Every structure is written in C-alpha cells, then in structure tokens.
C-alpha cells in the first residue's frame, strides 16, 4: 500500500523550493503486477483511470490494477481538444454528461491536482435555418432538463465573442448560437495524471507498458488475463481500451459495433489572450478555443475511412483551417504549430457502450467517438458502479450493448447536429 501522498499546495511548493524540489514523491508508483486483483481495468486512459479511482473510492474495492499497453493518458485523453459541455439533446446523454460536468466542477479539489477546468463557455453556432431549428431544439430540451443553456442572436454572439465574423454577407453567416456558460476546457494530461495519483493513493496498481494478449474465460466467467508481464487473475475485468476494445472483445468472441477512424486536431503558435470562449460550428465544421498557454486549439472532423494509424489526410486539415479563417478572418496570419491524429471509436448511433456482457465479470466501456473527454469522470463513475454491482447505474442503463439488438438507440448523429 502506498503511503498517503503529500498534499499539493502553494505551501508545499514553497517548502520544496528550499530543497530544490528534490523531495517530491512520485505522483504514482510503478509496481510490478500482483498475481491476482479484485478488479482489473484494461486501458490506462482517462476513462480507465477514473474507473479505477471510483471503484476504490465509492465501492470499497482496493485491490485494483489498471493495465496499460503504453503510457497512461496516451490515447485520446492526450489527443483531444479538451472541450467539456453537457448540452446534449437526448435526455439519456444529457443526464450522463451533466453528471460528468458536475464532477468536473469539483475535480481539482477532489484530486488535489489542478486540472485547470476553465468554464469559459461553449458556443454552438448556427449558420442556416436548419441549424437554427436544431440548435433551438437542443436549447429548449436542455432548458427543461435543467441544464444551463442560452440562445444568443447574432448581435449577442458578437457581444460574447467580438472577434467572430458576424457579417451577414458571408457564405455561411452566423444566425445565432447556443451558449452553455458552465462548459469549457481543461488540461487534458492533468486529468489522467490527477486520477492516476488519486487512484494510486488508494492502492490501485497502475501498470504501464503491459499489453494484454488474452482474456481467460472459464464456464462463462472471466478469471484473468494474459499479458506480456505474465498471467494476472481477476474475476472482474473492465475493458476501457477505446478502439482497441474491439481487439480485446475479439479475444472472447464478442463483436463490438465499433468503427475506428482518424480524427485530427492542431494548435497554433501561442499568442496573448484573444479568444475567451469555445466556438463550435457543425455546418462549416470547425471548433476552436485558446489554451491557457496561448495556443489556439482547433479540432477537425473525422476522416471517412477506418484506420488505427493515428494520422489522417491533409484535406481534412485544410477544410478545418479554411473554416476557421472564414469564421475568424483575423487568424489568417496565425500559424499551425503542431498537428496530430487520434483514433476515435464510433458506435452506429454515436453514443458510447457502458455495459456488462454475456460473460460474467466482463465489462466494456467504449465507443465514445469524438466526445469522450468531457465524459471522463462521469464515465468512470458509472462504469465503476456497473463493475462493482454487476448492474448498470441508472445513468448508463440506456448505454447497454443490448441496444443494438433492441434498437433502442441514443442517436446523437442525427439529433445533435453538432460535432461532439
């Protein structure tokens, strides 16, 4: 068991300054895997780490391991554009993401790790009558679901974000926008690290560079996993491996309805504050915010082919940057500094799977598509509940894998009309 971690604070920073910061303890240990755990989480991304954290915290399971093939937070947790919001159309989604948003609001204090959750608001911009209709539908639905959401007309958009081009003579003029003020962005890596530190403090073993090669099932019950670091026993296994969940599901003959596609993003060079909110446009497909470091963080749409390569075509980058320059002509002379690709695992209805399976003790949490980061704490919270109780929480009941046979889909494709 780990000794209680020393609290981070301005006082600890000052204190450590006198010893040249040579006495900080590791944020998490690097243990060798034990022979057996009460629960194993496969995948050390944000969702996996939060699952382990809430299993330990809310459900009194202390003997837990997170098994990560590479380094923690190295998948989409470390590759997204960090937008956090809960203004989803369907009740099921709204409830889940709102639960997550509430956890975001106290995360830094809960973890004693500053994840820089910055509630600078998210605007979803409408460019045609169809957008207006769909966004207003979402606004009304959010409103009645008690999720903060406002409708802004063009002038209010301009007032809230003065640098946006609201001229009515452009190809796709801004006709209005929804605004969720509690929404915003966070420091993505810090989320993984903060939860890892928190989970580690409660005794969770975080095992990196450990690849799962097989899932062992006996009489319809999981009994453990095989890895490149040997066999590890457990009767509860939660798989949170994004696109690679399909690979793991294949090991036990389960076919997941997931498609993995490249999703690209980029940042500009850092500049002094210029954009104080998050702007998303589905019609011209661009979203942008400015990080605390000063970089414009820009997301693109998915490439249209399936792939695990973490790279996409330049045409997508071109379309996205063009849309940004169209919406923010003043950014034309800014420069793209870094660009990267992630792999998003998408379900046919663009909603996640947080579910048990027909194999006892085997659970899946995947299919978050382009919108998983914002759900990170909520996802782990409900998944931990599901693993601990062998039954879904009310919040993730609608996201059972069975919905693909029953047809009870939560179709955020058609409905949301907005990139996640």
């Amino acid at each position, binding site marked *: 068991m780990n000794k209680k971690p020393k609290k*981070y*604070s301005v006082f600890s*920073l000052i204190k450590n*300054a006198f010893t*040249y910061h040579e006495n*900080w303890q*590791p944020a*998490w*240990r690097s243990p060798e895997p034990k022979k057996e755990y009460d629960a194993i989480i496969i995948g050390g991304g944000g969702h996996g780490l939060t699952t382990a954290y809430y299993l330990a915290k809310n459900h009194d399971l202390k003997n837990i391991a997170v098994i990560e093939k590479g*380094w923690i*937070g*190295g998948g989409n947790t470390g590759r997204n554009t960090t937008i956090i919001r809960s203004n989803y159309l369907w*009740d099921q989604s709204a409830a889940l993401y709102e639960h997550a948003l509430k956890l975001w609001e106290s995360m830094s204090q809960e973890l004693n*790790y*500053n994840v*820089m959750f*910055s*509630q600078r608001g998210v605007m979803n911009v409408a*460019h045609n*009558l169809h957008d207006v*209709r769909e*966004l*207003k*539908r979402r606004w*009304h639905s959010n409103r*009645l679901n*008690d999720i903060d959401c406002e409708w802004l007309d063009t002038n209010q958009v301009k007032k809230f974000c003065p640098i946006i081009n609201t001229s009515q003579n*452009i190809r796709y003029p801004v006709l209005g926008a929804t605004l969720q003020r509690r929404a915003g962005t966070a420091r993505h*890596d*810090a989320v993984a*690290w903060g939860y890892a530190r928190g989970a580690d403090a409660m005794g969770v073993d975080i095992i990196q560079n450990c690849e799962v090669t097989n899932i062992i099932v006996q009489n319809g019950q999981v009994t453990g996993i095989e890895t490149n670091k040997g066999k590890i026993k457990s009767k509860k296994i939660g798989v949170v491996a994004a696109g690679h969940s399909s690979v793991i599901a294949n090991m036990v003959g389960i076919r997941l309805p997931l498609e993995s596609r490249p999703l690209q993003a980029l940042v*500009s*060079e*850092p500049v*002094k*504050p*210029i954009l104080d909110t998050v702007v998303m446009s589905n019609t011209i497909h661009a979203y942008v915010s*400015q990080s*605390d*470091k*000063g970089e414009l963080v820009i997301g693109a749409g998915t490439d249209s082919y399936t792939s695990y390569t973490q790279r996409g075509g*330049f045409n997508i980058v*071109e379309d996205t*940057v063009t849309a940004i*320059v*169209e919406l923010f*002509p*003043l*950014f*034309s002379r*800014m*420069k*793209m500094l*870094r660009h990267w690709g992630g792999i998003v695992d998408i379900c*046919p*209805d663009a909603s996640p799977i947080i579910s048990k399976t027909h194999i006892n003790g085997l659970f899946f949490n995947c299919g978050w598509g382009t919108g998983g980061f914002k759900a990170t704490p909520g996802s782990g919270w409900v998944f931990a509940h599901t693993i601990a109780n062998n039954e879904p929480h009310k919040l993730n009941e609608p996201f059972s894998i069975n*919905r693909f046979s029953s*047809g009870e889909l939560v*179709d955020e494709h*058609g409905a949301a009309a907005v990139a996640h």
Partner: protein
Amino acid sequence: MSKKISFTFDGKKYFGNEKDTLASALLRNGVFLVGRSFKYHRPRGILASGSEEPNALVQLESQGFTEPNVKATEVLLYEGLKANSQNNWPSLKFDIGSVNNFLSPFFPAGFYYKTFMWPPGLWKKYEFFIRRAAGLGKSPKENDPNEYEHVHYHCDYLIVGGGVSGMLASEILRQGSNENIKILLIDQNNELGGNFNYGTEQRIYTKGIVNGDEAYSGWIQWLKNHIKKYFNLKILNSTSVFAYMHNNYLLAIQNIDPQISPQNKTLRQRIWKIRAKKVILATGSFERPLVFDNNDRPGILLANSAKQYMEKYNLKLGKKTVIFTNNDSAYQTANFMFRTGIPIECVVDLREKINPYLQKLMDIAKIPIHFGHAITDTSGWLRIKSIKINKIDGKTNKIIGKAINIDCDNLLISGGWNPNVNLFSQSRGKLIYRDLDGCFIPQESFQNEISIGACNGTFELENIFKEAYKKLEHLINPELLFNKFYCEETTYKENIKTIWQIPSSKPLGKTKMFVDFQNDVTSKDIKLALSEGYRSIEHIKRYTTTGMATDQGKTSNVNALGIISKISNRPIEELGTTTFRLPYTPITFGAIAGRNIKDFFDLERTTPIHEWHLKRGAKFEDVGQWKRPWYYPIKNENMQKAVNREVEATRNGIGILDASTLGKIDIKGRDASEFLNRVYTNAWTKLEIGKCRYGLMLGDDGMVIDDGVTSRIGKNHYVMSTTTGNAASVMSKLEDWLQTEWPDLKVFLTSVTEQFATISINGPYSEKLLNKLCPKEDFSNNNFPHMSFKEINVLGISCRIMRISFTGEKCYEINIPSNYAKNLWEICFDLGKEYNITPYGTEAMHVLRAEKGFIIVGQETDGSVTPIDLDMSWIVSKKKYDFIGKRALFRSDTIKKGRKQLVGILTTNPDIILEEGSQIVEKITKKPMDMIGHITSSYYSPNLKRSFALGLVKGGLDKKGLKMFVPMINKNIEVEITNPVFIDPSNKRLIA
C-alpha cells in the same frame, strides 16, 4: 558595397545589407538582445541561423500585416521592415516579467498542477493572470490583406534540401537520366548552398568538365550556377517542405518575394502539393547546443551559425570570443575567424586532445585550447560578460580543480549535430540511435525515399560524395555521367565526446541549464518530472513542455533524451523519440486555406433560373450548398405577408416553384427494379412505365434517411429524385451498396441533378397553363393522372413532365434540360399571368406541404424516426423478401408502442406561432420536466387563418384531442394534438 536597407526594431531605426536576414541585420547593428523567454522572461539573443531558432522571436509589422512569433533568422530583410520584441513589459531591456526569473525556485516544471486550487471559485481569477502571462506575440486584430494560393505538382524526383547533398543529387540524377525526367529541388533558404559541418576547406576533384581542383566553397558556387541552367530541373527557393504524407505526397510552403514587404505585394505564400515518384531527402542537420549552467545568455550562439553570420554576412560578432565544443566542427569556425582576422580568446574543449592537423592549425593561429575543460557557469544579463571553466575528470565527467574566469562577450557552442530526420520520420521511416555521436539516423525507409548526407548521419564531406553516388547509382545510367566528383580526405573528423549535461559545482537544483530555451525547460525540470514518476518520454514532454515550443524542439529534443537517459540510467534507444508530425515548420493558416475563403469558401450552387430570382428580389435560404429562393417580397412586404400571398396564390391560382435543386439520379440497367426494391421500403417491380411512385429510404437501423418520387421511364430505366440536402450522400450510399453489397446487380447510376432543371407548376389552374404551353397535348386527369409521367415536347424541347405534388394541389413538374430552363420559366410566367401565377419560395413550400401533412426529411425526421412513426406503414412492403432497414424495423424497440409519432399540433390561441424545436410536455412540473415530444414544423396558415404545427410526440397517434403544453421561457403555451393533415384529407384538390 551593397545597397543599405532600413528597418526598425522596437521603434529604433537600423540599416542592414541586401542579403541580410533580420537576425544578421540585428547582429550587424550590435543588437544581441532580441527577446524574452516564455516563462522566466530571461533576456535572449540569437542562438542559431535557421528554422531551429528558439530565442529570437519577433512580432513583425503592425495592423493587418502583423505576424507574431516570427523567427528573426527566417525573415529576409526588406526595405521598411518593422519588427518588435515580444513578451515583455514595459520594455525589452527592462521587463517586469523577469521577476519570474528570481522567483523561479517556486515555479518548477508543472507547478501549476500543484497550486491555484484554493479557494475553488478563484481559479478563474488565477487563470486570468496566467493567460496574460502566457502566450508570446499578439494575434492580428485585423483581416489579412495578403493572399495565398495552392499549386499541384508532379515529378520524378523531389529533392528536399539545396545543400551540398541535395545539389549533388540533382546533378547526379540529371546527368545520369534521360531528358524526360522531371526533377524538383526545394530549398528553404533564399540561395542554394545550405550549411556545412565538416570540410569547408576541402578540395573537390572531377574528371569531367570542371577540370582541375576547386575548394569546396568555389565548387559549390560553380555548382549553384551550373544547375540553374537545366530545363528539367526546377528549383524552388525560400520554400520549406513541411509535410510528408502517404504515397509520396509532400507539401511545401513557398514565401513569395521574401525581399518585398507584405504591404507591397498581394500574394504572400504558396503551398505546393507535390506527388513525387521518388523523394531524395537531403535535409541536413542541426547543431546541438551544450547544456550547462546559464547557457542561454544573449551573445551565446551555435558555433556553425556564428560562422555563417561571419562568412555569409561578413559580420564580426563580438570582441572577445570563446568557443566551447565537444567536436571538430567548431574548429572550422575558429579557423575561419583566424583567417579573417577575428580574435578568439580561447577554445574550451570537452575532449582531451584533437587530431594533429587541427592542432597544427590552432598552433599557427595561436588559439589557446583548454582541453578536458567545461564551461560551468556564465555571467552577464543583457549580454554574456564572462564564463567560468573547470577541468573535468575524463572518466567520471566530474569537476576537478578550481574554476577559471574568462571574460568574453561572445560564446560559440557546439555539442555535435542532429540529423534533420523530421520528414523521414513523418514518412513513417524507422529511426535508429547511433551511440557514437548521439544521433538518431534513418534505418529503414517506409516509402519510396532515400536519405543522403547529414540528414542520414553522413557528416564528413568525402563520405557525402561517396554516399551520394552509391545511393543514387541504381536510379541512373552511370555511363551518362560526364563528370564525377571526388573530395579529398576531410580534416575535420566526426570525433565527439558527448556529455549531455555539463557538470556544475552547484547542486542541480540551483542551476539553470536550459534544454528547451524558448519554453524555459531546464535539466532540473526533467529530473523533477522523472522523480515524480513521469517516466515515459511523452509524459516528460507534456509535464515539462520540453520540445513543445515554436521551434518544435529542433535544438532541444535530442539533448532532452540524453539527459533523461543519464538521469534515469536507461539507454536512449529504449526511450525512443516522440513522433515527428507535420508541420516541419509552423505554417500560416491563410496559406492552408489558400483561395478557398470568402467567395470561394464552399462554392454556392445556383439553379439555371437563379438570375430571374435575383431580379425578382427574392430572399435566399442556404439549403446544403444551394441558394434557394426563400420568399419573394414585393415592395415593403415583410416575410409573413409575402409567404401568405404566395401560399394563397398557389391554392387559388398558380404557384410556380424552382425545384431544380432536388437531387436527380438516373438509374439504368437490367436490375434497376430489383435495386429499387432493395433501397426503398415499397415494391417497384409492378410499377408501370410512365408511372411515378413515392419512396422512403431507410438506414440499416430502420430510420428514415431520405424520400422522393421515382419515375419509371423504361423497362430498365428510372429517374429518382432525392432531397436537396441529401443528394450527394444518397448517391454515394447507393454506389456504396451497389459496389460493396450487391456487385451482382447490373445497375448504373448517374447524377443528373444539374442536367435538368425542374419547374413545378401548382394550383387549380396548372392544367390550363400546361394546355397553353403545349396545346396539342392532353393534360387531363384521364390522360395524365396524378403520379404519372410523360416525355413531352415543350416548345421544341424534349421535357420530362411528372404529375406529382408536394403542395396538395394539382401539380405538373417539368424537367427540362438546364440550358432552356430560364426561358421556359419566363414563358410560363407570361402565359400564367391571367391565373395570377406567383413564384413561391421554400418558406411557402413548407407551409403548403405542412398544411397537407407532408414531411420533410431532416425536419420531421432526425435519424430516430421510422416510417411507422410517421404513420406511413402503408409504404412498408410486407411481402418483399428484404430491403435496407427491414430487419431493424422488427426490433423490440422499433415495434414497441408509444414511440414518438408524427402528429398535428394546434395552439389553443390561434395567433401564437410555436417555435420550431420547442418541447412538448403533458404537465408543467419542476425541472427537469418530462418531455414527450417536440415541434418539428410551425407556421401561420393563411388558408386556415391560424397557426398550426407538426410535431413528434410519444404515443401521439393515441393522444389526438388531448391538451398539452409547450413551456417557453416566460410562458407555457397550451396546445392540442391533432391529425397532421390540415387541408384536403381526401385528396380532392390533388386529383381535381
């Protein structure tokens, strides 16, 4: 003397020379202090001479022309250039922010993760100040006056890099191939020549045209002039290849006329999209700084960059120069300085000795060398003043003996060379670590590519020559080579002693050994990250931000790896590098957008009748890419009045609609009927030729994705119409199914959306107008009933006329080849005057169809609606073996009762028009309220003389007559669920 060019830096006027970069011009004027660092605001100068520069960032120009974070080393001087320093206040020399430097003990790597958490609500305030402290330059606030463009280019050979290797490669390939090959040589500098590491003094021999021998510098000049003459070799200067994508697709950015100010040109940059059969990478290498205490002061330069400034720009940097090196290449700088009479105080060399030839050169130059010594500290604030050197133990690398102080105003450092493998790595080639000189070099190509010269880890000139011939030999006919070059053995050998972190007499915690200069990442930050458990290279990078500055780690990445390796006692090859990704150097957004902005941003599609609509004063609506007339106001009519007029005219006289934007797909082939059977829910086999049928298309989840009328033109020939917005996606879905699911079906699809224009003539008098148009034809119900089709010659033009209706009125849709559409429209208009023919737009169309209960896909449906939900089970064939979505229609959720169903909705108060998208509840309760549906369409009907709406309501079909509520912000609107057909439920008007 060359021409003098004036420029300003921080408002002060200076003069530079014609070929100067901003960096060389500043140095020429003795300006060594150029910027402030990101975090500690430390004074910084110019470290390097190219794209790797981490320190000398400036804000170029002002207003619309301003550009932040420009590397002074990359800007060519032009008359009137204006540059300002960044990230300082009130001034570059006196920057309040540099208090951070003295508080730096409290700001270690990642300090922000550990604080600013209390009290919880205050983060926004903390963040306000953090954001203002961060960032470097300032974003432009005005629109960009310059333009950008894209060019596509195909070639046999693309050579990236115009240094010795690149030029040699182009000469070998040109000589050794036939005349038809196309070579493109791209170089990031304004002039070919590149940098050079080991061997500038060597002699070059040839047995061909250039007889005799030439010193390297003379030879390179000869080669530069020589290769410019060849027509099959295209050279792009001032151009950087920034991306190496799949299938040898590379992207380069060219600075247009870099020596002309942006104010005096329109076109600023051009992106080249290049597809090359073979790529030769000759991208050279970057000199590595040495990591020692306070290694960042203004006046500290990389040794080879300093040589460039002295040689190429004829500068004399400082008065007292010290060179600090761990390898031979810095001695070239020393020797050059000696030959040009620039004094050197001494050389400090980590090694114990150098080769005898070099030693002799230094003896002649009378340059003292401190062997086995290291610089352990420096002093000076706005410029380096002195250094401290110590002897170090050759084995343990620990300090022994006392420090010696040496005054200097200029320190040139060299820690060896990093091959520039960025593009190679982008191409997915595999790298391998070479311990000998601490380099990552290409191991295995992934694409059709060859790396040569310094970027391949080949540094010595004689080897560069040998390698170029050897690696390119298989591409050419060696007999065609008419001169072959050789180089004498190089004096300067790659002989290096790598100490990643130079020892210091202070504890590491007290030092500032900069690894990433711009982001102020020091060696102790890396140590901190490691000790806190951030062990993966990616974790360290993200925790410390090393390598994430605007220079993208060109000078810092390998040093960081070396230090991680040393501290964590793991071999470098185990750590791996982080992935190199595009762009190689930061790329202007405007250039990426090119011409595709403003008028060219997603080109507008307009119908052949568009001009008429414009003249008529129509207001337009964007539907997909199309501009569709929304309504046609007359004089000062508001929208509601115009729409009422258009709707009434259509119900009482004739309404005419330009429906050309609807997708039209021509379907031909033996299996056309079977194909339709599979893609639509209803049956097609028995549809007679000359008849039309409405179809609903489902996704494989059983949900409606499109609708439209399809007409049977012949036995194996149909024409399908789709919704305007979905035309392209339906076409590609159909093709997808044909090609991947049913390759056995013989069906051919052609989009004819733009070949035909569609004029829809609606209303009780439509038949009369058709009779006037084609007096010989019979348009009566008997001969031309509803849902039938005829090919008819209209005024000499063969047209397809369909009797179908989207308004509920008697309607004829004339499909006419596009060229004639406007004429026909005008003729209809003239002939219809007596029936009050009125053009109507999409808004009136919506009202008309909604009155009749007709759906619009994407409005009444949202991807969660089945045909049964729309109360259209009549259209779902029970007999057909299969169709797309059939299986899904029988899933437990799709057949369950109480799904959302299409209904009509009437407000109790007939004057209230509901908002589309508003939600319906049974009871007003506290939030969250239980929403049972929403309003999909809502209008005022001049025919009903009241508002009306359509909506999707849970179990709606069983709720007709019940009262519900639509809760708005300040009021709750009472509504009643009704039948969705408000006009002519028995179709009397339709078949009249």
